[in-house]
């Protein structure tokens, strides 16, 4: 029920994310107004590769410290050229505004000597409305 209220508040405040194909994550910028103790953001990670990849979603603060957010789902397999929605609910933690990074991470070719982790981070700014 709480999640529902959070989502309703976020949507009422105008947070409408639109999925876009062939991107690693969309949107990469956003500003949210919320009337509850948390705010919700929906992002759309996409797999531009011709193979299935494992994708992880992480939430960080401005200093790249992990944020205790609820991510649904946080780890998943994404088919080639596919995209899927991921819901991130972040508590304000008593603050009136909060800046977070939501990052999509993947290592498309694991088990190599030097692996490259591709990380696409979106920056989001949330305001707690009284």
């Amino acid at each position, binding site marked *: 029920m709480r999640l529902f209220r959070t989502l309703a508040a976020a949507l009422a405040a105008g947070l409408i994310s639109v999925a876009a194909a062939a991107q690693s994550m969309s949107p990469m910028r956003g500003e949210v107004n919320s009337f509850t103790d948390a705010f919700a953001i929906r992002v759309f990670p996409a797999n531009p590769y011709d193979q299935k990849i494992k994708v992880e979603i992480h939430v960080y603060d401005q200093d790249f410290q992990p944020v205790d957010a609820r991510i649904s789902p946080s780890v998943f397999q994404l088919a080639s050229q596919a995209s899927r929605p991921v819901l991130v609910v972040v508590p304000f933690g008593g603050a009136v505004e909060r800046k977070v990074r939501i990052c999509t991470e993947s290592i498309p070719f694991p088990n190599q*000597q030097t692996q490259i*982790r591709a990380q*696409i981070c979106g920056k989001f700014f949330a305001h707690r409305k009284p």
Partner: protein
Amino acid sequence: MKLFRPVFGAAVLVACLDRAALATTQNVIFNGTITATCALVVATNGTMTVSPDLQSLSSHNSGGSAGTVTLTTTGGVSLSVDPVTTTTVPAADSTATTWTPTYSASGAHTIAETGSATALTVPGADLVAVNLAGTKGGSNRFASGNYQATVTLRCE
């Protein structure tokens, strides 16, 4: 009266023919908004080789190769690499190694090799080369065995 009808009809017909059909036009507006986006596609991972003095394990060394990533962006984002935190070394290697990740780019943006963040202001596609160098100081040397490290390339 007999002539009135044809004359009146002809007059009305002429009056109608004299007027062009009224055509209306209406503009159809299309709007589109593109927010800052960035896509990274890892093409190849890198390979590190050891230097003759065994104090450098690097993709810059002879026989080594950089990892390559294609980047496509609208601009308004920044590119960076994280310090290396995930490494696997052979058990025989017990001495400290300093890992230095760097990258360079060519294409829409020209970025000389750097380890710092770079703002990408204009849209376009780039080929990013990611390098990694591990170094040992003093009398320390790399040991035989398998080494593995992960470099995080970030676009935000």
